[in-house]
């Protein structure tokens, strides 16, 4: 029999509708695997559709926004306000001849764009878009995110190695070195977040933030900082776009790719960005919750709004910041972020112990921890940066000396201060 319509009403969460559909299918007496397959197919299709639309939209948004930042107009010819520019670009990429470099390792060259696409899209399976809009709410979700992120490395190496191009190889080696270093930072900062929430399931972490009415970002400013930077590294955004540093190694590991194969890399890059933003939103910004507003507004709208907001920060940084050098970025990971992340984990561990042993109520404990962690973040970042700055006294900004004396030599003298 058909279920009452009342159960279909709640479209705030598409998970409800899907759940009702699944029960309906079970009621019809279908074999057990049918709802299982149907839910999987619906989830996969929804995620694919969403990613394609989002990527196309954000290509346009990024180009317009960066255009505004750069005193130019940006695409405005194709469609109203250039809205169809990404579609035109995609069509162009589709119809381009797929060129393979001479002496390239053909198999790997063709495989790399596919392989890079898989981990970037699989990440979304564990992201809770709404209360029950999650394809596979793994109980090791956080670990899964990190593990899947590490597979990117392989695809990048395959692309760089197989292209038979030196820029590509340099880009690939840079990517691998960077990703491995920053994976460690990611693990450590996410570990601190997991310590707070007491679960690696992303849904539980969101629920924890909803229950206590606090975003983890207030409790974990250091962790958020670490993750935002590590995320920028993973998605190759400025100031850490070293792997495809345009002014240095042309386009890094995908220098030799054209046509739709390049399109795959391009889309994977945006998807990686969305994935990072989604993780930040889920872990640090309360996911689909917004202090009760989610009762009235669909949770997935809140989630997407937050996600796009976080992604905008990365667009902004791309339009603003210069690029670090690879050794500086590695030094930043190992000398700056790693000690801070370790201290952060230690402090969070101590706080959780305190919470349980001293039997504090959440109303007492969380504000206390928030203040402690915020102060600690400021003190640690400032102090450690000051300390590291002492080791490199020459790295200060200054002005030029102005002189009238022709032929004098000022080399090595104290420069004019700012």
């Amino acid at each position, binding site marked *: 029999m058909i279920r009452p319509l009342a159960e279909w009403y709640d479209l705030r969460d598409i*998970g409800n509708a*899907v*759940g*009702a559909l*699944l*029960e309906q299918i*079970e009621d019809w007496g279908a074999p*057990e*695997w049918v709802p*299982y397959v149907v*839910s*999987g197919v619906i*989830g996969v299709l929804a995620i694919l559709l969403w990613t394609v639309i989002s990527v196309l939209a954000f290509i346009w948004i990024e180009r317009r926004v960066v255009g505004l930042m750069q005193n130019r107009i940006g695409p405005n010819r194709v469609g109203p306000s250039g809205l169809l520019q990404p579609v035109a670009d995609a069509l162009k990429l589709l119809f381009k001849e797929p060129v393979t470099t001479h002496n390239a*390792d053909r*198999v*790997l060259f063709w*495989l790399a764009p596919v392989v890079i696409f898989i981990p970037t899209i699989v990440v979304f399976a564990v992201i809770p878009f709404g209360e*029950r809009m*999650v*394809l*596979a*709410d*793994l*109980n*090791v979700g956080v*670990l*899964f995110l*990190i*593990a*899947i*992120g*590490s*597979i990117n*490395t*392989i695809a990048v*190496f*395959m692309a760089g*190695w197989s292209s038979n191009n030196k820029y590509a190889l340099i880009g690939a*080696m840079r990517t*691998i070195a960077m990703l*491995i270093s920053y*994976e460690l930072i990611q693990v450590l900062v996410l570990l601190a977040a997991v310590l707070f929430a*007491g*679960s*690696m*399931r992303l*849904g*539980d972490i969101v*629920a*924890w933030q*909803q*229950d206590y*009415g606090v975003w983890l970002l207030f409790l974990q400013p250091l962790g958020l900082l670490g993750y935002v930077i590590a995320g920028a590294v993973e998605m190759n955004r400025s100031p850490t776009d070293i792997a495809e540093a345009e002014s240095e190694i042309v386009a890094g590991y995908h220098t030799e790719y054209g046509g739709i194969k390049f399109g795959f890399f391009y889309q994977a890059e945006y998807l990686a960005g969305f994935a990072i933003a989604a993780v930040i939103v889920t872990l640090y910004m309360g996911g689909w919750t917004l*202090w*009760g507003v989610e009762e009235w507004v669909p949770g997935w709208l809140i989630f997407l709004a937050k996600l796009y907001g976080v992604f905008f920060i990365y667009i902004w940084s791309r339009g603003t910041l210069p690029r670090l050098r690879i050794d500086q970025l590695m030094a930043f990971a190992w000398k700056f972020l790693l000690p801070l992340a370790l201290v952060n984990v230690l402090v969070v561990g101590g706080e959780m112990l305190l*919470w*349980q042993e001293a039997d504090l109520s959440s109303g007492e404990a969380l504000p206390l921890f928030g203040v402690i962690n915020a102060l600690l973040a400021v003190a640690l970042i400032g102090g450690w940066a000051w300390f590291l700055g002492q080791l490199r006294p020459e790295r200060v900004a200054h002005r030029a000396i102005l002189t009238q004396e022709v032929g004098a030599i000022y080399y090595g003298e104290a420069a004019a201060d700012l």
Partner: protein
Amino acid sequence: MARRPRTSDGRYQSAECRVPSARCSNLLRRAGAKRLMDDTGTIIAFWVLAAITVGAALGVVAVRNLIHAVVFLILSFVGVAGLYITLSADFVAVTQILIYAGAVSVLILFAIVLTPRGDRGNQETFLRLPALLLALLVAFTLGYVAIDTNWAISDRKGFEETASVIGEALLDKYVLPFEIASVLLLVAMLGAIVLVRPEATMEETGE
């Protein structure tokens, strides 16, 4: 805002408690909840994953290009991770991907790239035939033991949650091995660094 009851150890109860599991589209939990591994999905998954794993391993043996061999090796690692998932060992599966597919394979790739004049081929030595015989013998023996032994099969369901149990075991029952493992990792890291530092090499090898 609804506060969920906290358990005795200060944690709140998981979201699972309020969501009826039948309506949850969680692939893994559904798979893990099966009593015996006899549903079609698991059987198909097992055979496909086993084929991928073994086929990729054979690929490692067969291909002539070392880089391709590494790619097959990674595929094999991922296949093993999939097999772990069919065994409802999600933590181990994810760890497998993280460590093997993400880290060890990258180390291998690094080793290949850092030895540029080395052989990029994947040939066998003259020990090929004895090795093949020995490997077949081992495979036969292990397979025979596996089939012939009367294992004490339990009728337990798949594990619901492995990560927390493993974590507790690591920090409680196996805390000493855990610490030793961490020291081992540290030593390995230091060892690797010391080995490849150019200055150290020059002194030690007397060049």
